[in-house]
């Protein structure tokens, strides 16, 4: 429930990993929209959270201003400003989360065991994790997977799934419903709340499967087993935090990989990819116990 203060509406304060925040805005519908897309994140107290201020400019209907603490004010087109807010939340979550290793990876879980999908941008990991959610998996993240330093536990960052236009057709049933008054605000990207899936999200899971996805149009589905050493090398290149303490991260990621089966997965069809991941996952659980 929001609190109205003067002409400002506040979102529920939440935590994006180590970044605790809420948003103040002068647009009630924008507050409601942001509350919906932040709904997967754990709630925190307001006194522990920093405040973003997102205000529509009075002098022009198309412009807005964004500020966060003492970081100065960004002024620009509303779409750009809202996109910057979402980017800043993710970037600050990565920057402020130091009690875990952070992988640039999507992740989903089944019965407490997780598949981790490390990949750079535009590799299809959000699309693939959305497909897994549609198939009944529980959601951990589409962007940053937090791993305990002993490699034994994954912590969720259950932000809204950021679905690019290239995947809108294959994920058409996930299209969010947005009030028309927000048309001028929304970036050219869907923000899909994980709370719309009945199975919701998991807050933690054990590592079981690591799959490096890559989309190749017309390339079919190709599964390539990887040695754990090769997977570890690849993971160090997919880590937001590796540079902070390379030796400690190397040992922690080695422990994480040691608990997992590792594969590369080339895909060109989402349903095939989901079924293939599910089959690999079940094989891993049956053989490893």
């Amino acid at each position: 429930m929001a609190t109205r203060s003067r002409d400002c509406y506040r979102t529920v304060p939440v935590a994006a990993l180590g970044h605790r925040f809420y948003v103040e805005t002068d647009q009630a519908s924008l507050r409601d929209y942001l509350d919906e897309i932040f709904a997967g994140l754990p709630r925190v107290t307001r006194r522990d959270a920093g405040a973003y201020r997102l205000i529509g400019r009075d002098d022009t209907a198309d412009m807005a201003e964004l500020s966060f603490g003492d970081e100065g004010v960004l002024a620009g087109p509303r779409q750009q400003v809202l996109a910057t807010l979402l980017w800043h939340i993710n970037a600050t979550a990565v920057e402020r989360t130091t009690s875990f290793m952070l992988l640039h990876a999507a992740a989903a879980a089944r019965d407490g065991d997780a598949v981790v999908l490390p990949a750079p941008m535009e590799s299809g990991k959000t699309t693939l994790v959305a497909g897994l959610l549609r198939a009944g998996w529980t959601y951990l993240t589409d962007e940053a997977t937090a791993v305990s330093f002993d490699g034994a536990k994954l912590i969720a960052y259950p932000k809204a799934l950021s679905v690019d236009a290239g995947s809108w057709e294959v994920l058409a049933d996930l299209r969010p419903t947005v009030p028309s008054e927000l048309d001028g605000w929304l970036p050219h990207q869907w923000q899909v709340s994980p709370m719309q899936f009945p199975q919701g999200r998991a807050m933690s899971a054990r590592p079981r499967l690591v799959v490096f996805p890559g989309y190749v149009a017309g390339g079919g589905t190709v599964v390539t087993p990887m040695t754990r050493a090769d997977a570890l090398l690849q993971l160090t290149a997919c880590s937001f935090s590796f540079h902070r303490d390379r030796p400690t991260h190397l040992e922690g990621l080695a422990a994480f990989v040691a608990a997992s089966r590792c594969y590369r997965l080339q895909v060109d069809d989402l349903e095939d990819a989901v079924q293939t991941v599910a089959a690999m996952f079940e094989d891993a659980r049956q053989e490893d116990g």
Partner: protein
Amino acid sequence: MTEITADRLTLEHAPKRRPEVTAVELDGEAVLYAPHDQSMHKLDRLGTFLWNCLDGTLPIAALVEDAKAVYGPTPAIDDDILAYVQDLGRKGFLVGVAADEA
């Protein structure tokens, strides 16, 4: 300590891995992190076997004999293992052996 170049390593030398190199082993393959240039390297099974033996007490000639026992004799195993150890030296992994300039 005066360092030698890697190509001057011979079968009589007893190389020692640098203690500041972080190494983890997974299924017989090692991944190494070299802090002097922040590089990452993967060693195959033979390389991992050699790495684990490089404690400064065993001459490379002894490593050759140990490798023959584990992997079987091959025609050029002496030269192969010497070359492998020299390569580790060039990458900066050995005490007293100068890394190649990047």
